[in-house]
């Protein structure tokens, strides 16, 4: 009996690992197909052709800000300089206790206007004051001041006050490419058979890059090894993961830092859920299940170009805090939407995509953690077969290196952000160091997050200490 249990556990780990690697290599194949298709299609969709069109849909950019006094002016200026004919910017001051609001009022000639009610379909902490600029230069800027309610609540407030067909949710500390909106609306203009319910672009890491007036002038590789490894992690996740899922219409996540949605659909589902820290994933899953219930054809689009830049954690502490939060978010979302699991009513969302998230996104850290405990027990009882264990570990490590190198190769082939040989060499080396530096921290953060949820430790969003780009 003992032998059967032992064998079963070992086979479980082996099969799980093999399936995971097969999925990853499946991602490579799907992503290659998707990139090739996307490249061909993109040659027919030149954004210069639509720049001056009067039939473009209007877009509201909603950017919540909490205690970002140090960077708020540069960031709002950057958001205001985006190239798009019909867009407005709503900055939601989410109860900042610093001088963010005062700075905004002074710099952008803001004047308080009569408080009015936004859309009532979305719940949020009520706005206290609304400001508009008296300067014609900033006529598309609105600042909403409200009590602190968290990122999701602030976004909901912005969405409630938006008056456009499309809403782009971002963060006030993100740097958005000047032509990002023109690229983001492309799928909405192009689609005829299915409604685009969400779209997102790739997120780039801008640590140590050269930024002038809120515009990225030169992308540099981060100096901190933790941030540098995340560059490869993002390339892998966005270029391979999202691209592959997008190709099979299985995207379940649009990054919170940069996601566009039709406002009508956001109002229908009640906006973001303020009770979860994984509000971006939660919204996307909720939108998809809503459309499945309505039985209306829809799609979630991923745009492979880097349209938004953010600062990645560069110290172990901040990195762990971030991954702890992401893990808690995932835990909450999986729990909240458990009814989707293997539920045919939701078609592929219920039978394929959501179970993938459960088995391979949510369960992977748990399996890895249990595997580590199992190895430790083996070590303790002296039952480990060292030659086989070492050979297996090297194999897994090399497979991981191959996977990362392929991601960097595909990125170099198709995008120009990192083109110098020295830079690419640094990224390759960083990716090979990932299992020794970032991965243990990541696993620690994830398990910490799960344990907090299991033992109901009261937690918040957590502070992301920004060093500045």
């Amino acid at each position, binding site marked *: 009996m003992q032998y059967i249990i032992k064998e079963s556990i070992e086979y479980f780990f082996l099969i799980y690992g093999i399936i995971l690697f097969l999925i990853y290599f499946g991602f490579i194949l799907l992503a290659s197909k998707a990139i090739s298709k996307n490249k061909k299609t993109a040659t027919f969709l030149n954004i210069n052709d639509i720049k001056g069109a009067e039939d473009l849909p209007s877009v509201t950019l909603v950017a919540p800000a909490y205690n970002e006094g140090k960077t708020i002016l540069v960031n709002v200026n950057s958001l205001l300089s985006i190239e798009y004919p019909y867009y407005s910017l709503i900055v939601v001051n989410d109860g900042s206790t610093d001088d963010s609001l005062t700075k905004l009022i002074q710099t952008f000639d803001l004047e308080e206007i009569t408080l009015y009610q936004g859309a009532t379909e979305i719940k949020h902490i009520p706005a206290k004051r609304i400001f508009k600029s008296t300067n014609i230069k900033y006529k598309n800027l609105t600042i909403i001041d409200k009590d602190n309610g968290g990122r999701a609540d602030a976004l909901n407030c912005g969405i409630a006050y938006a008056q456009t067909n499309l809403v782009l949710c971002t963060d006030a500390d993100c740097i958005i490419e000047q032509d990002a909106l023109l690229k983001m609306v492309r799928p909405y*203009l192009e689609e*005829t058979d299915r409604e685009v319910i969400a779209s997102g672009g790739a997120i780039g890491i801008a640590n140590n890059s050269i930024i002038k007036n809120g515009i990225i002038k030169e992308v540099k590789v981060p100096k901190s090894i933790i941030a540098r490894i995340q560059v490869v992690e993002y390339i892998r996740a966005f270029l391979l993961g999202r691209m592959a899922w997008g190709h099979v219409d299985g995207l379940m996540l649009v990054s919170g830092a940069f996601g566009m949605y039709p406002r009508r659909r956001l109002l229908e589902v009640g906006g973001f859920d303020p009770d979860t820290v994984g509000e971006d994933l939660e919204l996307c899953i909720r939108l998809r299940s809503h459309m499945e219930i309505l039985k209306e054809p829809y799609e979630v689009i991923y745009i492979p170009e880097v349209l938004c830049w953010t600062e990645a954690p560069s110290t172990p502490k901040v990195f762990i805090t971030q991954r702890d939060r992401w893990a808690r978010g995932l835990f909450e979302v999986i729990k909240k939407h458990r009814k989707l699991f293997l539920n045919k009513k939701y078609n592929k969302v219920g039978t394929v995509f959501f179970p993938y998230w459960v088995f391979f996104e949510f369960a992977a850290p748990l399996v890895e953690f249990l595997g580590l405990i199992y190895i430790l027990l083996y070590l303790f009882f002296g039952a480990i077969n060292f030659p086989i264990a070492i050979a297996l570990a090297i194999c897994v490590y090399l497979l991981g290196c191959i996977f990362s190198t392929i991601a960097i190769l595909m990125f170099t082939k198709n995008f120009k952000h990192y083109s110098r040989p020295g830079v690419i060499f640094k990224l390759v080396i960083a990716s090979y160091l990932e299992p020794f530096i970032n991965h243990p921290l990541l696993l620690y953060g994830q398990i910490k997050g799960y344990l907090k949820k299991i033992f109901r430790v009261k937690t918040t969003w957590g502070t992301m200490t920004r060093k500045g780009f």
Partner: protein
Amino acid sequence: MLLLGIVTLWLMLSFTIFKNNYNRKKSKEIEHKLIDSIVLNYKNLGVETKNNKLNWVKDYINTENGFWNFSFIFVKVHNVAKATKGTTFRAMANNIGLIMSLTNKLKSNNWYTRGKSIWLTYELELSDNWKTIIPYRNDKNKLVRREAQIALVTFLGWKSLVFFPYAEFPISLWQQIRIIDKLKSYYPTPDLAYLDKALKSKNPFIKELLIRIIRSYKLNDYKWYIIEQLYSNRIDLTECAIETLNSFEISSEDILPVYNKLEYTTNIVQHEMISDFVSHQKHQELLKTT
């Protein structure tokens, strides 16, 4: 074996970096050479000398990649300079064999080649090819039919509207924007006879395009058509009609039939949208009178 895989990937990565740099340099070189060749066309040189100097292009465009690389640069330079001397480009495209090559590519079985060839045809204003393009206007490939429709508008202008009632697929907003853009740049004066014919069409795929054309050309006399679409069974068309009507002067006479029909609408969303529109217009009217 895994190590061998990694080494192979490094080699591929090195080759990609080298190739990217080479392509970048090559592209710049071609652009410079192309501009030199264009300048050459303005110089008083003999035909033979000119042809000899263009021999490099003839060789270059013989390859598939070379053809498209050169074409993209050619269009870019053409778009900058077309306001001055368009005919020089046409003659040059002819001399280097670009037009001949393009005419063959238009008949390609590959959708990408076909689509790009149609694009190049209208960008270079090679109107002789319009008859070859006509059958592609309802091609099963979305991008091919889109380029074909844009090409027809570029070459035939308002007359091309006679083809649209036979559209077999929906026309995306991107396509509508491009069609209107071409129509406005090449044919700024509306030819209402063709518009009238198109307006009679019952084809649901073209109604939105027609609404946008009416708005774009500010054809006040055709407001009735937009008002008619308010009660369409397609909500997006109602939405588009409302947006468009907001850019026109609306009188109480225009509003009355809309208002009278409102109570018969069963679609709640549509009812809400139209009643919002009506009350907004009434409010505007009231403001004007006071």
